């Protein structure tokens, strides 16, 4: 039976179809999850896609956090379900307190869409396990509020525990502290990532194929082990 990966659609989600496609290209089955439906339909992992959930009104991700599906996602994540939040999904994870810190307006005060070079700094999470430590990849970034911030103690702890999964290299696009592009929780099952690997899984559209590892990693790790 193929690994089943749920992709949540909130009102205002935009990259849900792209994330589902990336899951299929990686060889897993994509299962659509609806914000108003608390059931996770027995999926082995969940992706919170990019977009502007609920219009990003109030604060990015602040309203999505209270949706019925997120109650189930938060509970399952605490029990070890692999969860990847991309861009707006990262914001939702921070708002849900599954990950520390917050994402604020880019330092340049503009939306930034470009190809971005990253270095993978942790390969113990289920979502980055397909990469080599220190591997550099180029995938798109596109956000208006993508600057990762946290207090110094939190940043030190994240770095000390090896929980920074990816960093910007060749230029920080949004002013993230310590060039952080993505982090994980202590257990390694929850990852938040500001750039968009789902737009880099197909050589024809988007930008190259170096984002595919974020989706194939989940296949290499049997769901039972990821719950550790």
């Amino acid at each position: 039976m193929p690994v089943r990966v749920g992709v949540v659609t909130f009102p205002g989600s935009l990259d849900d179809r792209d994330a589902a496609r990336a899951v299929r290209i990686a060889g897993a089955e994509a299962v659509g999850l609806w914000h108003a439906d608390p059931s996770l339909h027995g999926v082995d992992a969940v992706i919170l896609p990019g977009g502007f959930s609920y219009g990003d009104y109030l604060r990015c991700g602040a309203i999505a956090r209270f949706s019925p599906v997120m109650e189930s996602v938060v509970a399952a994540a605490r029990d070890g379900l692999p969860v990847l939040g991309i861009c707006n999904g990262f914001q939702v994870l921070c708002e849900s307190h599954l990950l520390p810190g917050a994402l604020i307006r880019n330092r340049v005060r503009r939306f930034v869409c470009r190809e971005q070079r990253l270095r993978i700094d942790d390969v113990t999470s289920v979502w980055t396990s397909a990469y080599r430590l220190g591997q550099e990849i180029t995938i798109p970034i596109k956000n208006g509020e993508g600057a990762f911030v946290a207090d110094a103690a939190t940043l030190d702890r994240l770095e000390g525990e090896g929980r920074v999964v990816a960093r910007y290299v060749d230029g920080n696009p949004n002013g993230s502290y310590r060039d952080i592009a993505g982090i994980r929780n202590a257990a390694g099952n929850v990852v938040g990532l500001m750039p968009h690997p789902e737009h880099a899984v197909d050589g024809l559209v988007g930008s190259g194929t170096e984002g595919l590892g974020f989706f194939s990693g989940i296949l290499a790790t049997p769901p039972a082990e990821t719950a550790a």
Partner: protein
Amino acid sequence: MTAVAVDTVARAAATPEQPQPYAELGLAEIEYRRIAEILGRRPTSAELAIYSVMWSEHCSYKSSKIHLRQFGEKAPQTDTLLVGMGENAGVVDAGDGWAVTFKIESHNHPSYVEPYQGAATGVGGIVRDILTMGARPVAVMDSLRFGPLGLPDTDRVLPGVVAGVGGYGNCLGLPNIGGETAFHESYLGNPLVNALCVGVMRTDGIKLARADGPGNKVVLFGARTGGDGIGGASVLASASFDQEHQKKRPSVQVGDPFAEKVLIECCLEIFAADLVVGIQDLGAAGISCATTELAAAGTGGMDVELDLVPLRDPTLVPEEILMSESQERMMAVVAPDRLDDFLNVCAKWDVLATVIGTVTDSGRLRMTWHGEQIVDLPPRTAAHEGPVYDRPIERPYDQDVFVEHDGRTLPRPRTGDELRATLLRLTSSPNLASKSWVTDQYDRYVQGNTVLAAPEDAGMIRLDESTVRGVALSVDGNGRYTNLDPYVGAQLALAEAYRNVAAAGARPVAVTNCLNFGSPEDPGVMWQFAEAVRGLADGCQILRTPVTGGNVSFYNQTGNLPILPTPVVGVLGVIDDVTRRTAQGFRTDGALVYLLGETEDEFGGSEWAYTVHGFIGGRPPTVDLARERLLADVLINCSRDGLVDSAHDLSEGGLAQALVECCLRGDAGARIVLPEGADPFVALFSESTARAVVTVPRTEEVRFTDMCTARRMPFARIGVVDLLDGRLEVQGLFSISLRELRRASASTLPRRFG
């Protein structure tokens, strides 16, 4: 307009002499009298509101109609057109049961008043036009014009417009795949914001704006109606700016892209379940436009209870509700037995939906306000039978000045050093410099079907992940050329967009246009307009690309000074297999650089004359549409047969600028040898048309040259790609490192805007 007592039909009949503010609403006395003639009495104030917006220049095309007819009369026979002009947007057959719809529209005046919201709602409006056809919107493009870079008002307008285009499109999840940004003094008080949207559907899913079937329900859904944009359509878009009209400022609409995103998904689900008989978006003229147009196109009658319209501001009076341009609203005609399903889909998406009326066969649009009759009119008279003017036309005397002062005596660079400096100056000029400061604010990846995006010659979209079929689009316009000769200028815009699409490997099949001009009451402007329309219609006939729709924007002027006449032309091409597309950048070491086409000494309206000498004069480059067709055939063949690994059209800035862009895009150097005997300045900077630069892998050279020879396409081998060299060298004249080129090209906009 805010009278306490409701002006009913009965009251209007009883008080024929009551004075009405028709002039303030933009209606001429003769138009007002005609309304009274149609109705057999004076209009009620609600009817006056409807006629004033529907008969405005913006909605009725009263000054342009007699010219625009040529697009239909001269339309080439083609079997690719599924829906032609007259609907919300034209629809083109893209093969295998796929259909594509596209259109461009202006939002110029609001974008000057309030750059962010003006531009944002411009995107929102064109997206709803595409959605209305039954299509999923899949991409947007934008064509922008601003006053000179470096002036305070440009600092205010440009960042706001760009943020607005991006803010709305990004939040809708529509990739922005290209466009253009240009600068000239005449746009200082009157920027141009033209937005294009393209949508995809199955051919059997096309929807039309018709209210058919007596007894069917009229449903208003989407956002509540508020006081924004009241009078915007007729008053704001039809009167040019001057001091005394500053008070019009607050009437720009405010957009909510999240509401529109939800509305799109809701509509697509409604379409998929086949729940509507007809559908119309609410744009300019709001409910006035939607009700009159739906009724006029369908069975012919409609009863509406206007007091049922959900309001954001409960104090709005009927006239304001009719004229409101609140965004993110749609109107559908739904059969009674589908109504519950329709409302359920709306509820799923949290979209407010309200039955406000019923289709009738009375031939009348009747509206009540709390039971009292306030509108009773024949809808065709408002929607289609508005006034038509044959405005006076006169060729401006100063057209001759352009011909006399043709710029032949402007000093030209001769030495290698001078040519090098000229190239750098042009590459860094606002018009030619990299626009990545703009396009990096737009999401070009979302939806996962973007094959090519800016700065490529054309944007290209795969229709769906289940197919390799796709479409390519380019929008182009050049106000300088059009100013020198409107007939030729319009054809040059068409030719460039057509060439761009072909360079990407797609076959151009259809055209949309946005005609931006000054006041139609100025005979000189009207001459420019008439000539441009004639040129475009003739050009489309020769290129066999019918005009499928578009938009006219008049009154683009500050005081008596009109903008450069700026017809912006969008060309749509189809491609059977997007994996065969051709991109712009040099990418293969040792590939041979070929120049297709012929170069003449043509600098009228050129970027060189404008940037270096501040001069606009002479004749624009010659148009040869037969040659453009030949070039397009060659480029499409090259793409299909894999004869080239890059292609880039030549336009503003000539060969030099094209080479710079090819090098920078591919991060590759090139060694160029100009054709023997050629004047280097002319060879590098002339803007002769029907030309392109391609690179040919050595293994394909014979096939390539044989094909060009057989087709009688002039070609010249002018150099070789050198991936590692890191410079653009023009042998015997100069060389420039890619680093220096990149700095020249990339720093112009950031230097001003950060």
